[in-house]
C-alpha cells in the first residue's frame, strides 16, 4: 500500500487540471443563481401585478345579487353596475366592456362569474383579482378594522415549545444535521458519474496490465476512492463558496432573506451522528460505484447501472412524510436499516429528531460493515474484471472465481 499517496495525488491533481471539473462545479452555482433569479423576479412581478390591481385600467361592470358588494368600491375601481347578467355578458361579447363580474346570491357556495376580453394568459388574472378585491373590501368595510384583519387572516402568532423544560425550536434544531443530507445529495449528484468511471479509463486505455504489475490493486482502488472523496468535498466547496459570496454581496440588492446563524442551535450528538451517517454512506456508495465501473467494460455500459444505484439512494425520498411522521412503521424501519436505501432515511430522521441513539449506532455499524465489504468487492472486481475488455463481469465470477 506504499503507493497509496502517489495514486491519491495523481488522481486529485489530474482531476483538478480538467476543465470539465471546474466547468461542472462552477456551472452549478450559476444555474442555481439563475433559477433563483427567475423565481425571484417572477414572484416580484406577480406580487407587483396583484398589488396594483386597483390601478388596472380596464372597463368593467358588475351585477350583484349577493348584497355584499358596496357600490362605492365598484366606483373606486372605475366600474359601473348593469341591470342584468345577460346584459353584462353581451356587453363583453360585443366589446363594449372589457369585463363583467357577476356576484351570485350565495358567494360562499356559488362561484363569482367573471366574463372578460382575453388579454393573454398571465394578464387575464387581473379580472379575477379585481372581482375578488371589490368583494373583500366591500365586506371588510362592514366590520371594524381589527375584525377585518382577522377575517383576512392577517394576524400573526409566535410559538414557543419546550423539551425537558427548555425552549426547543424543532425547525432550527434540524438545520445543522440536515446539512449533511444536502451535502450527501449534492456530492452524489455532482460526483456520482466520476465515481462510476474511476476505473473505466484504465480499461478503455488498456493501462490495466501495466498498472497491475506495478501497483497493488488494493492500493490503486483505495487511492482512487480516497481521491474521489476529497474531490467530492472540493467540488462542494467550489459550489458553495460562489453561492455564499453571491448571497452576502447581493443580499441587500435583491432583498434576500437575512439568515442569522448566530442563534442556530447545535446539538453535538445529532451533528456527530449526521456526520457519521454521511461519511459512511458516501464511502459505501463510492465503493459501490467504483465496483460497478470495474465490472463493466465501457463507460457506456457502466452508465446503465447508474440509474439503479440512484434509485436505491434517492427512491426513499418518495416516503419523506413517513420518515418524519411515522418512524415506527415497518417500511421506514426497513429502509433505515437496509444499507443501500438507508442514507436518506437516516439523515432525515436524524435531522427531525426521531432517530434514537441505539438505532443510529446499529445503522452506522451496518453502514460501516457494508462500506468495508463494498470496497473489498471493488478491489476484487477490479482485479478480476481488469482484463475483460469486451464483456461485463458476472456476479458469479466476482464472488466465486478463483482466478
Amino acid at each position: 500500500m506504499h503507493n497509496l499517496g502517489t495514486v491519491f495525488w495523481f488522481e486529485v491533481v489530474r482531476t483538478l487540471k480538467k476543465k470539465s471539473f471546474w466547468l461542472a462545479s462552477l456551472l452549478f452555482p450559476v444555474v442555481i443563481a439563475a433559477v433563483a433569479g427567475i423565481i425571484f423576479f417572477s414572484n416580484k412581478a406577480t406580487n407587483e401585478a396583484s398589488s396594483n390591481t386597483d390601478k388596472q385600467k380596464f372597463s368593467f361592470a358588475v351585477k350583484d345579487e349577493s348584497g355584499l358588494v358596496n357600490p362605492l368600491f365598484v366606483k373606486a375601481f372605475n366600474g359601473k353596475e348593469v341591470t342584468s347578467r345577460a346584459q353584462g355578458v353581451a356587453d363583453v361579447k360585443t366589446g363594449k366592456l372589457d369585463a363583467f363580474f357577476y356576484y351570485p346570491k350565495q358567494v360562499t357556495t356559488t362561484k363569482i362569474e367573471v366574463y372578460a376580453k382575453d388579454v393573454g394568459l398571465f394578464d387575464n388574472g387581473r379580472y379575477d383579482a379585481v372581482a375578488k378585491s371589490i368583494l373583500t373590501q366591500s365586506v371588510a368595510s362592514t366590520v371594524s378594522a381589527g375584525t377585518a384583519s382577522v377575517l383576512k387572516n392577517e394576524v400573526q402568532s409566535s410559538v414557543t415549545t419546550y423539551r425537558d423544560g427548555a425552549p426547543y425550536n424543532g425547525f432550527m434544531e434540524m438545520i445543522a444535521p440536515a446539512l449533511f443530507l444536502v451535502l450527501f445529495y449534492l456530492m452524489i449528484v455532482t460526483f456520482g458519474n466520476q465515481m462510476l468511471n474511476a476505473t473505466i479509463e484504465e480499461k478503455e486505455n488498456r493501462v490495466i496490465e501495466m498498472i497491475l504489475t506495478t501497483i497493488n490493486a488494493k492500493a490503486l482502488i483505495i487511492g482512487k476512492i480516497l481521491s474521489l472523496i476529497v474531490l467530492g468535498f472540493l467540488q462542494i466547496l467550489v459550489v458553495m463558496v460562489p453561492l455564499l459570496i453571491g448571497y452576502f454581496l447581493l443580499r441587500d440588492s435583491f432583498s434576500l432573506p437575512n439568515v442569522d446563524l448566530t442563534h442556530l442551535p447545535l446539538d453535538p450528538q445529532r451533528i456527530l451522528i449526521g456526520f457519521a451517517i454521511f461519511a459512511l454512506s458516501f464511502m459505501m456508495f463510492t465503493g459501490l460505484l467504483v465496483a460497478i465501473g470495474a465490472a463493466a467494460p465501457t463507460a457506456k455500459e457502466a452508465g446503465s447501472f447508474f440509474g439503479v444505484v440512484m434509485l436505491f439512494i434517492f427512491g426513499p425520498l418518495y416516503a419523506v412524510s413517513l420518515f418524519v411522521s411515522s418512524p415506527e412503521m415497518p417500511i421506514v424501519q426497513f429502509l433505515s436499516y437496509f444499507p443501500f436505501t438507508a442514507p436518506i432515511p437516516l439523515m432525515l430522521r436524524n435531522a427531525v429528531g426521531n432517530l434514537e441513539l441505539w438505532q443510529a449506532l446499529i445503522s452506522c455499524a451496518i453502514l460501516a460493515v457494508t462500506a468495508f465489504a463494498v470496497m473489498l468487492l471493488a478491489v476484487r472486481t477490479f482485479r478480476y474484471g481488469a482484463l475483460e475488455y469486451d464483456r461485463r463481469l458476472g456476479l458469479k465470477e466476482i464472488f466465486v472465481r478463483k482466478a
Partner: protein
Amino acid sequence: MKADIITIADFSMRFGKTTVIDNLSFTVRRGETFGLLGSNGSGKTTTLRALLGIYTPMAGTLHIEGKPYQVDGGVKLGYLPEERGLYKKESVIDVMTYFGQLKGLSRHDAHEFSLKYLERVGLAEKVKTRLDKLSGGQQQKVQLGVTIMNNPDLLILDEPTKGFDPVNRRLLMDIVEEHQKKGATVIFVSHQMEEVERLCDRIILLKDGNAAAYGSIKEVRKKFDGKSLDEIFLKVYGQKAGQN
C-alpha cells in the same frame, strides 16, 4: 551454468472448457535473453500473465526469484504488455513521472529520467503534450520509456515490435541490448524469428499449451535437423501457422 530466475513447473490454465496451458514446465536463467514463441493463442501471453500474478494458475507454480511475483516483492520488473496503453488524456511527463513513482523512483528522479529519455527518443518538445495528441509511434516510445524507467532486472516484452515502425524497432533493439549488457534477464515474445535468433540465448516454442521445443537455439535447431527458427515454426504449426 547461471541460476534460474524464473521457474515454471506443471503450470496449467483453463478458460471455461478450453485448456490454454497444459502442464507446462520451463525455467529462465538469470541474465539470459529468453524467447517465448508460439502461434497466436498458443498460451504465451497467458503464461506471462500468470507469471506476473494477473491470472491465478489452475495448477502448478510460477516463481520469480523463488516465489510468486508480487508487486512489492522486490523484483525490479519492466513489463511491456501485448495490450498497450497509457493515460491518454494526461501529459507525457505526468504519465511517465507517475509510473516512475509507482515503480519506486522519487518524483525528482522519475521526472529527470523522463526528460532524458524523451530527449534521447526525439520527444523533448512533446513533454507537456497530451498522449492522445501524439502519433502511434510516439506513444510507443513513451510506453517503452515507462517500461524501462526503473532500470529493471527482469524485462518482459510481449510482442514488443508489434506495430512498431523500423525506427522504433531499432530503438527497442538498442534498449534490449543495453539491458542485456547490464545483466538484465530478458523475456522476449515475438513472431519475428530473425530477431529471436539474433537476440535470444534460449527459447521455448509453445503449441497447444505445451512445449513443442525448448532449449538453446543451437539445441533446438539441432533437434530439428539444423533448420532455421522460421522453418521450425512452420514445421511445428504446419498449416495452422498460416491460418492464424
